[in-house]
Structure formats: C-alpha cells, structure tokens
C-alpha cells in the first residue's frame, strides 16, 4: 500500500476522472493524520458509505450545513483535553455546502476564531444530486435548475466570491487552488497550517458528469480554467495578497468553455455571445486585480 493510501484509500465510489480524490489526497499529503469533518455532498457519498469508508483518519459526516460547527466543536474539545498535538482539524465541504447551505456555520467558525482548516471542494454545482446550481456555479452554466432554454442561456447570476467573504471575516490564510496542480494544493495546505486560527482554501475540482467531459479531459479542462484567468490561483496571508500563479499567454475563455457540455449552448444561443463576453470580462478583471499576466 502506498503512503497516500493509508489516509484515504482506493475503492471509493468517485466517477472515473473525478477531481475530488485528487484534491483530498493532496490535502492529506500535507496534513498527515488529522480530524476530518465532511458535510453532505459528493465526497461524503463516494467515501463514507457504511462499511465502505475510504478514510484512514478520524472522519465524521453530520449534515449538510454544519461541518464548520462540528469541526469547531472538535477543535475546542481537543484543546480542552490537551490533545492539540494529534493533528489539525480539517473540513471538507462542497461548494453548495460552503457558499449556500453552510455559510452561516462557516461564518460562525471564522468569527469565533477556531483553529480549523476549511477546504471547499468547488465543482461548481450540487453534483451528487445531478448538477443543480449553487452560489459557486459560474454564469452561463446549464444546470437542471438553470437549464439553457429558449429564454435563458443557463445561470444568469455571478459566481459568489467566497475568498472575499473569507477575507472579510479576517480568516488568517485564504487561498484558491486547482486539481490541475496537486503539488500546489499540498504546498498551500502546509503553509495554511503554519497559521493558528481559521483558514480557508477553495479548490477548483472537475466534475466529469456535471460539466459534461470525458475523464481524459478532466485535468486539461481544469488547467484551462486557470490559464484563462477564470479561476485565478491566489494566496492571502492575514489579509494581504502574497502570491499568485502567473499566466503566460493568457487564453481566451472560449477555449475553456468549448469542451464542456454545460457551456455548449453558449455557442449557438442568441444570448450566448453576451454571456461569453461577460465571462471574458470577469477573466480580464481577475487578471488585472491580481496581476496574473506574466
């Protein structure tokens, strides 16, 4: 058995090519033994079915909204029992659990200043129930609750800026990462753990079924999200932007959108051009705001 496999194992139920296990093992690579609280979502479904747990570390699934509160409780208990040396407390939560359903508990955890690493696995919709939009679904994405039709070209509203929300809570370390760069995830988690207090890392994680791509396209598509600046990789320490992943020859957003079924309608829908222009504007703004262009 490989080192990695002692903390999170093969035999889990993720779709072939899924990004979630890549994110999870890259995080665990940095944390080593730790305490995991996981909200309801894809990761919970694929890894914690009774009698089929893929976890080699203490793991708890409670409900959809309260992983941050459960983690806060674990952290407080470990502190009270003098057991802080047994490993960090880590939350794994999906984008829906983070940006919509669990945002209250997350806000409370930040507010009370718990020493918890909160990892948002962002596959940009409620994917375990079959692709319903969340606050982190990008504009233009066709989901079962924002289907592209005669009138609407998929989701209309913007992607919620969760890193900014974490920063507004004065979370000590805030970063974004991508499954296209697993070693970067590991490095960021190591860095995050040097800070005592709440930490937030949001990892862009490919969903092959929800995004409508083949397993072989998973990593190339995730890479394109970064190379178009639609998913900027940024790092804040105590509120200051300290590092970004620079982009050489930034690509137009169409290159990222085209291979994915969830955006396919944009290339023929009457309002498609407008949405693509809006996404390009978001990418340009990201590049400018964070100084991404190399």
């Amino acid at each position, binding site marked *: 058995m*490989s080192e*990695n*496999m*002692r903390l*999170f*194992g*093969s*035999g*889990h*139920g*993720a779709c*072939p*090519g*899924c*990004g*979630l*296990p*890549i994110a999870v*093992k*890259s995080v665990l690579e940095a944390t080593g033994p730790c305490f995991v609280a996981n909200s309801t979502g894809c990761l919970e479904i694929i*890894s*914690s079915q*009774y*009698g*089929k*747990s*893929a*976890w*080699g*570390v203490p*793991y708890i699934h409670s409900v959809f909204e309260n992983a941050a509160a459960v983690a806060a409780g674990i952290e407080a208990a470990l502190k009270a029992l003098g057991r802080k040396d047994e490993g960090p407390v880590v939350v794994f939560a999906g984008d829906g659990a983070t940006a919509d359903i669990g945002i209250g508990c997350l806000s409370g955890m930040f507010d009370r200043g718990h020493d918890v690493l909160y990892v948002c696995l962002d596959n940009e919709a409620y994917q375990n129930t079959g692709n319903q939009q969340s606050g982190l679904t990008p504009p233009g994405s066709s989901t079962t609750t924002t289907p592209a039709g005669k009138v609407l070209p998929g989701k209309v509203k913007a992607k919620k800026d969760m890193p900014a929300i974490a920063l507004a809570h004065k979370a000590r370390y805030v970063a974004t990462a991508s499954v296209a760069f*697993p*070693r970067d995830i590991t490095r960021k988690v190591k860095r995050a753990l040097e800070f005592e207090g709440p930490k937030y890392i949001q990892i862009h994680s490919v969903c092959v079924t929800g995004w409508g791509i*083949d*397993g*072989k396209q*998973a*990593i*190339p598509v995730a890479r394109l999200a970064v190379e178009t600046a639609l998913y900027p990789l940024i790092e804040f320490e105590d509120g200051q932007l300290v590092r970004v992943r620079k982009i050489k020859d930034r690509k137009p957003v169409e290159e990222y959108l085209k291979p994915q079924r969830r955006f396919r309608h944009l290339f023929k829908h009457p309002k498609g051009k407008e949405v693509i222009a809006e996404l390009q504007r978001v990418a340009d703004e990201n590049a400018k705001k964070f100084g991404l262009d190399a």
Partner: protein
Amino acid sequence: MGEKLRITLGAVSRPLESLKIKTGDWGAEYPVVIEENCKACGDCVVYCPDLCIELVETGEVDEKGRKKKVAKVNYDYCKGCGTCSVVCRHDAIKMEIKEIYKG
C-alpha cells in the same frame, strides 16, 4: 480519569474498508506503462484519482548508482479514466481497450 473517553454513537465505519471494493472492472480501458520511457517523476501517482499507481523498484541501478523505479498500476482499483496517460510528460502511459470491449 486519565483514561481516554470512548463513546460509540451512531453508525461507525472502520478505516479503509473501501479497499474491499475492487473498482478495477469499471472502465472500458486500462493503462499500460511503457517502462523504458518512464522517468519515475511521480506525476501519474500524484494525479491518479483512485490512488492506484505506485513507483516501484525495478531491481536495476542507473549510471549514478541509484535504484531505478517505474510506475506500476494496481488494476484491482484502476477505473481506466486515462488521467495518468494525459498528465505523463514522457509518453510512458498508453490506454488500451479491454479485451471484452473489443470488436
């Protein structure tokens, strides 16, 4: 006191029980490592979502006296997603169609 508190509530799973679930029959394709191309960079290991690639010693030593390693796939769990073949920068992994899906 002094003893660790042990309370069992609700459903408790044992660690790594997923290893019983052999997902190796999911895919229609499987990866083949071309050992002479493999540089043992470990990229495929880092990316494989099913944690089923390891670097193993070949038994040979290189010019500098270091033990040579190559990527080895555990087909008990490989789902044939093809990620390893895409991320390998040394053309050392090819996807093949399983015999039963041919023709």
